[in-house]
C-alpha cells in the first residue's frame, strides 16, 4: 500500500485542529500551552512530509531549527506560567483577565 503526501498532511491537519481546539476551550493554562506545542508540531509534520516528497531537505533543516527554538520557548513560557501562578494563585485562563480594563 502506497501512502501519499495527502495522508501525512491529513494527520498534520488533524493534529493542528486538535491543538487549536485545546487552545480555545481548555481552561488550564498548562494544557493550553501543551495544545499550543501540538499545533507547532503539526506544522513540523507538514514541513517534514512536504520536504520528503519534494526531495528537498530545506524543510527538514527548518524543522530542526524549529524544535531547537521551541525548546527555548518552552523554557521561557513555563517560567512565565510559574510566575503568573505565583502572582495570581491560579492557572485558569478565564480568571486571568487583567488585560480588560
Amino acid at each position, binding site marked *: 500500500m502506497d501512502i501519499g503526501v495527502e495522508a501525512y498532511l491529513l494527520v498534520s491537519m488533524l493534529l493542528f485542529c486538535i491543538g487549536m481546539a485545546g487552545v*480555545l476551550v481548555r481552561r488550564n493554562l498548562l494544557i493550553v500551552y501543551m495544545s499550543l506545542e501540538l499545533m507547532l508540531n503539526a506544522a513540523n509534520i507538514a514541513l517534514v512530509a512536504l520536504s520528503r516528497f519534494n526531495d528537498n531537505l530545506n524543510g527538514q533543516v527548518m524543522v530542526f531549527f524549529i524544535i531547537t527554538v521551541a525548546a527555548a520557548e518552552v523554557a521561557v513560557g513555563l517560567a512565565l506560567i510559574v510566575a503568573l501562578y505565583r502572582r495570581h494563585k491560579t492557572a485558569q*485562563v478565564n480568571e486571568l*483577565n487583567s488585560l*480588560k*480594563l
Partner: protein
Amino acid sequence: MDLHSLIWIAFLLPLAAAVAIALFTRGNRQASAGLSIGAITLSFILTAAYSVVTALNQGGAKASEITWLSVNGSAPGDALNIGLGILLDPLSLMMMMVVTGVGMLIHIYSRGYMKDDPGYSRYFACLSLFTFSMMGIVLATNFVQMFIFWELVGVSSYLLIGFWFGRPAAADAGKKAFITNRIGDFGFLLGILLVWSAFGEVSFSVIADDIAHGGNKLVGMGKFGCLPLATLAGLLIFCGAVGKSAQFPLHVWLPDAMEGPTPVSALIHAATMVAAGVYMLCRTIFIFDDCALLYIAAIGGFTALLAALMAVQQDDIKRILAYSTLSQLGYMVMAVGLNGHGEGATAAMYHLTTHAGFKALLFLGAGSVICATHHEQNIWRMGGLRDRMPSTYWTFIVGTAALMGLPPFSGFYSKDSILSAAAPWINGHGNVILFVIALIVAFLTPFYMTRLVCVAFHGGARTDHARHAKESPGVMTKPLWILAFPAVFAGWAGIDAIFADHFGAHAHYDHWYSYIVGPMEHAPFVAAMGTGLALLGWYMASLLYKDAETDPLPEKLGALGFVTTLMRRRFFFDEIYQRVFVAAHDAFASVANWFDRWIIAGLLVRGSHGTTELVGRVVRMLQTGNLQTYAAFSILGAVALVIVFLIA
C-alpha cells in the same frame, strides 16, 4: 472760545451729572438731586443765553461736529463719515429751551415728589441720562446721531417706566414700551439705510442741500413693488416717529408707561420724549414726498380721534392725560403731514412747544393730587379737591383751559394753527376729512378734560383720602405756578413766527399785537369753530358730570351704550394684539421649541452622541480580557484571510 461751545457744555453737563451720581454720590441723596438739578438748570441758562445772543446778532444756523466714525470706501463715493455734533438753528434751540426749561421744573418738582423713595439717587441719574439723550436728538446733525440718541432715550425711558421694578405692572410696562418702540425703530433704521444708499451721506444739511439743488435722488431709484422708493424711505423714517410718538398702531405702550413716577410721565411721556417723533419729522421734513406726507397726516388724524375717544371713558387720572397726550401728538403728526409750504411743520412745532408746557403742568398737577390722596389715581375716588388744594386746582384749570384751546390760552393759538393747516381753503394741502376729524377732536378734548376736572376737583369728596387731602409742599406747587405762565402766555410770544421763519412758511404778523389777535384776523372762521366746539364740549361735559357719582354717559347714550364700553376698553387694541401678535408669536415659539427639542437636541445632539455610545458599547464587548477569546478572534481572522485569498 466760540459761542457755540456754550451749547456743547449744556449738552454734556447732564451726562456728567448722571456719571457722577452713578459713580460717587449714590449714597448721598441730597448731593444726587443737587447734581442733577444743577446740571439741567445750568443747561437751561446756557441755552437761553446762547439763544438770546444769537437772536440779537441775527446769527444763522450753525453746526459743530466731531468725527464719530470714518470709513474709507474702495471707490471715492463710498466713504462714510458720521459726525457727532450740534446743529444750532431756531428749530433745535427752541426745542432745547423746551427740554431744558420744562425739564428743569420737573427735576425740581421731583425733589418733593420722590422724597421718600429709596431709589432717589438712581431716579436722578436716570433723569439726567434722559436729559442728555434728549438733547442729543434735538441737536443731532445727522441721521445716525439721531438714531443713537433715539435709542438712548428709549433706554432711559425704559429705566424710568420700570423705576419701581418691584411692581410687576411697572416692569411689564417698561418692557412693553421698549419692545413696541423697537418695532418702530427697526423701520427707522431701514429708512436711514435707504437714505444713505441713495445719497451716500447721512448729514441733514448735505441731504437737504442735495434735494434743494439736485432733486431727490431717491426718486430716480425706482420702485419697491408698487411703492416708489422715495415714498418708502419717508414711510420707513416715519416708522420711528410712530414708535416714539406712540401713533396708531404702536400707540399701546404710552398709556401703560404711566406706571412710572408721575414726574417722569410729565417730562418723558408727555412733554419731551414722545414729542421727539414730531421733532424728527420736522427736522427731516425735506425727505418726505407728497404721498408719504398724506399717509403721515392720515395716521396722525386717526390717532388723534381714536385716543380722544378712549380718553372720554378712562377713570385713571394719569391715563386720561396719557390718552390726551396721544391725541395731541396725533394732532401734531397730522399737521406735519399737511405741511404745504412749511405751514404744517410750523403748526406742529408750535403745538409741540405749547403742549410741552401745559401738558407738563397737567401731569404735575395730577402728581400733586396723587401725592395728596395717598396714591389714589381713580378720579371717582377723589372729588371736592378744589377747596383743599387751591394751588393745584387753579394751575390745573389753567392747563385744562390751554389744552381745551380756549382763547387766550396758549393751546388756542397752536391748535388754531393746526386747524388752519388742515382747512383746505386756507392751506392748499389741507384735507376736508382730516379737518373734520380735527374738529371732532377739538370737541372731545374739552369734553374729557371737563369730565376730569368736574369729577376729581368739584362736588363732594367720595373717599376719606380725598376728604383729608392736603395741599402739596412748595417744592411741588411752585413749578406748577411757573408752568402756568407759559400755559397762558406762550401764545402771545410769537413762537410760531420763529418756526414759520425756519420752515419758510408765510407768517401773518404785521403789528406788535398781531401775535395776540393773529388767528382771528387770519382765519376767523376756523378760530370761531375751534373756540365754539371747545365751549360746546365744556358745556356738555359740565352738564353731564356736575355732581355725578358714577359715569352717566353709558345711560345717556342709550342704545349706543356699547360705544362707551369700546372706549373704556380702549377699542380692545391690547386684547387684539394679545390674540393676534402674541398668540402668533407663541405659536411660532412653540414650533421653534419643538424643533429645538426634537430635531436639534433630540436627533442631532442626542442622536450623534447616542450612536457613538452604542457603537462603543458593542465594540467594548469584544475586549473581554480573556486570552482565549483573543485567540479565537485571531484564528477567525486567519481563516477569513485564507478564504479571501483562496476564493479571489
